[in-house]
């Protein structure tokens, strides 16, 4: 087990490095010149050249990458072109807000996904299975920005139950665990939980239905164990897969909520990315993508380490 964890950690290093390279290069692969955003298009050539030197854009690409990486590991992600504030601070605030939203939405989605999926799998072919399948298809296929808008129209505009925008009263960007802030969380969390809910329901349903036909479950029945005990066995056997899917879903929620965060003006990473794209704010873009990718790598690492604790066969893979 110790060597397994060590090996996983070592594997994560080249992945993380690859991620930094790609997030660095992505911005250069995108069309357009980053300087267009700062300098007016009719700016004199000397000004452009001076700006290039100031932002380090005159150096060869590998060197730019090296310098960027060196600063990044020290926590310096540069300065936002649009706001002039340090990127690291902006990203950190956004990550905190997104963690709150993604955490709550993910928890709701995973919990109810497991519940619905287990019920549907246990009674597969029954009416509860059909309802769960219907819900999961809807969850996966409804465009969530559209769902967000519909919820806003119904619950904010018509009923005025929940606020439509922001993470707190008065457009505050600092998250607090109080009633006023929680009210802001309701609609975006519901909107966002629908995707993991659908996917996890489907996964758990298939796993449980398949598991119940397996010889070992029949053997557990033959031993005279109670349904509750058999459920415990089935749950432990499905846990590694559910964990892997949940980890991926949480990763997607961290960055994949661009549209939902924009609809609700939630000051998280998605919102930040969206703003940075329109402002061509390359340091912010790079920094945000980098941090999100690191989250993904870390989540996968955590899943990889937990899985063999549940199913020891996986430590040999």
């Amino acid at each position, binding site marked *: 087990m110790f060597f397994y964890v060590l090996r996983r950690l070592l594997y994560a290093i080249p992945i993380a490095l690859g991620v930094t390279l790609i997030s660095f290069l992505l911005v250069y692969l995108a069309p357009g010149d980053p300087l267009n955003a700062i300098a007016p298009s009719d700016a004199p050539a000397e000004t452009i050249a001076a700006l290039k030197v100031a932002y380090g854009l005159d150096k060869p690409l590998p060197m730019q990458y090296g310098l960027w990486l060196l600063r990044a590991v020290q926590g310096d992600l540069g300065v936002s072109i649009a706001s002039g504030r340090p990127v690291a601070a902006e990203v950190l605030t956004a990550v905190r807000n997104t963690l709150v939203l993604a955490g709550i939405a993910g928890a709701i989605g995973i919990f109810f996904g497991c519940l619905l999926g287990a019920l549907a799998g246990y009674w597969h072919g029954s009416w509860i299975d059909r309802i769960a399948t219907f819900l999961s298809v809807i969850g996966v296929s409804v465009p969530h920005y559209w769902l967000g808008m519909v919820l806003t129209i119904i619950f904010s505009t018509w009923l005025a139950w929940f606020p439509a925008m922001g993470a707190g009263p008065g457009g505050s960007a600092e998250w607090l665990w109080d009633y006023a802030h929680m009210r802001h969380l309701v609609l975006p969390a519901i909107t966002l939980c629908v995707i993991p809910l659908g996917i996890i329901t489907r996964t758990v349903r298939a796993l449980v239905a398949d598991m119940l036909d397996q010889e*070992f479950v029949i*053997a557990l029945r*033959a*031993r*005279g*164990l109670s349904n509750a005990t058999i459920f415990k066995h089935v749950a*432990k*056997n499905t846990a590694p897969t559910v964990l892997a899917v949940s980890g991926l879903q949480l990763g997607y929620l961290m960055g994949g909520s661009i549209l939902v965060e924009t609809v609700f003006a939630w000051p998280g990473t998605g919102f930040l990315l969206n703003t940075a794209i329109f402002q061509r704010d390359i340091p912010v873009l790079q920094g945000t993508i980098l941090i999100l990718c690191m989250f993904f790598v870390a989540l996968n690492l955590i899943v990889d380490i937990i899985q063999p604790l549940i*199913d*020891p066969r996986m430590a040999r893979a």
Partner: protein
Amino acid sequence: MSAIKPLVSVEHLSLAFTGNRKAQALTDVSFHLHAGEVLGLLGESGSGKSVTLRTLLRLHSERTTQISGLITVDGLDVLALNSRALQAYRGATTSMIFQEPGLAFDPVYTIGQQIVEVILAHEAVNHSVARHRALEMLDRVQIPQARRRFDAYPHELSGGMRQRAMIALALACKPKLLLADEPTTALDATVQIQILLLLRELQKETGMAVIFVTHDIGAAVEIADRIAVMYGGRIAEENAVAGIVQHPSHPYTAGLLGATVDSSHRGKPLISIPGSPPNLANLPPGCPFAPRCTSASDQCRTECPSVVESPAHADLASPPRLACWHPIR
């Protein structure tokens, strides 16, 4: 029937699968078994032998099976048990060992945890007593270094060790009836013999009754007192081992015996029964074996023979029984 009540009696058991794949798996199966007896259920795949075993524990999905008949084990009307009584019956009165021990253990719990769990489910003992008993059972099935194997996961043991552990688990609650579903089929030949010897030894020691399902006539002869040959979901012939081997009366039994491999046949092609087993979704109206039988008559093709006890041996506790219009004399 003898004066002593048999431990197991199965009467006119019929079973049909009504789900996606419809099949008449069992038709009018009757047999009985006394305490301490070993019955071999012999037949090829699809003959109904495994279905019979699983029905004895009611393991088939109730939504997709239709069962009629009567099963009594140790005075319990098995088909009428409520779910609580069924749980108490499974694993304690009657327990089962499976063909593939690798598939019949939960892969994410250790061998020891699973044995302890069964003991705790059936007996009012504390964890340390159960653990002690589990270790004792592992010793008893001759697993070397039982203490280490106790904490091993199923995938960490060899096939033979896994089957031994499965036997330990099945016997942990001292069942009166052990159902063995081809327990040696998935094992190497040398390990097969060890497991058979172990089973026979444990059976003698505990005095439990065993129903041993196999398609391997050699294994059946090795372990059973009596053999019931099944074909097409029916019992074709039942007799003491010696009777079956020396004087098979049913043409199918004779065919099975003829198809065994032994050294005197060296160099000659293997003898087999022509044709293939009947389709259980569409059984012929007469004797299920008639299409493959060399001595089949028109009567065989239209009328199914019922199982009849041999009048010559009516004084025995379990007289030979046969379902054939034209038995071999």
